[in-house]
């Protein structure tokens, strides 16, 4: 009987999947509605799984914060920095070196891109560092 109760307890605990971190919570609440949970985007929204194309290119680091989705997200600089460190690693497979800080993110997001698509094409034309 005790074992049954314990098993049921464990099952119940694992049943309700909680967002594991604030980064994941912020991703679901602020990004996943349009970019979708797996980052695949849609006909009208750019996919996040195309981020590895830019990885290592000069300007990519700044670009990822200055795109409208990141720059205008209703998050503090510190939360956005933490989210973007998590997000870039999740979709490029590489850790951000050095990690984004609240100060850096704050300065970049106050200068958002007017034409993100054009900027992306320009970065893609550059050779990787």
């Amino acid at each position: 009987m005790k074992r049954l109760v314990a098993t049921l307890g464990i099952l119940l605990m694992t049943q309700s999947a909680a967002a594991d971190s604030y980064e994941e919570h912020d991703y679901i609440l602020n990004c996943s509605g349009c970019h979708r949970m797996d980052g695949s985007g849609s006909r009208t929204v750019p996919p996040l799984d195309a981020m590895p194309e830019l990885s290592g290119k000069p300007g990519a680091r700044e670009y990822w914060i200055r795109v409208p989705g990141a720059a205008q997200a209703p998050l503090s600089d510190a939360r956005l920095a933490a989210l973007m460190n998590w997000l870039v690693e999740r979709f490029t497979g590489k850790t951000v070196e050095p990690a984004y800080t609240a100060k850096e993110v704050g300065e970049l997001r106050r200068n958002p891109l007017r034409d993100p698509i054009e900027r992306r094409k320009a970065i893609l034309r550059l050779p990787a560092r």
Partner: protein
Amino acid sequence: MSRLDHWFEGMARQSARRVSRRHWFSRFGAVLVGGAALPLLPVARAAEKHTLGEDGVKGPEGDPTRCEYWRHCAIDGFLCSCCGGSHTACPPGTEMSPVTWIGTCRNPADGKDYIISYNDCCGKTYCGRCMCNRNEGERPLYHWYRNNDINWCGGAKAQTYSCSTAVVVKTAKEAQPEK
């Protein structure tokens, strides 16, 4: 003390004279069977519907066909549960949009906040039944990030809006800050 004994004795003898044992058994049996059969009556089942609903929530807040349902706290649209679908599934002939409006709602049963995804169902003409416009935590259009007035069917094959679902994604770390 003896007076009480006498009184009880008198009562017992009187009832033995007036009520037959069979009569008593039949009445007692009727109470037992009747009590057990009561929940089978449609009236009892109808009342039960509102005692404990979806997600263990009582009353209208636990009924997915009502606007008051707790998951509908940030919804703006027709309830799919009223339009041939359910609160998690689209009606036949419609397609669930992959892009969606996301917010948080508090479940009154456990007091926790949950991330809710209001996926729209698209491809058939608008349902027109059970309009629900609660929009808790929504912001004007110039805060495009927290505005749900755009057509979320933009990501689906057909852009026609039919109705909205309310799917739990995960438990939230905190309530949406705009609330």
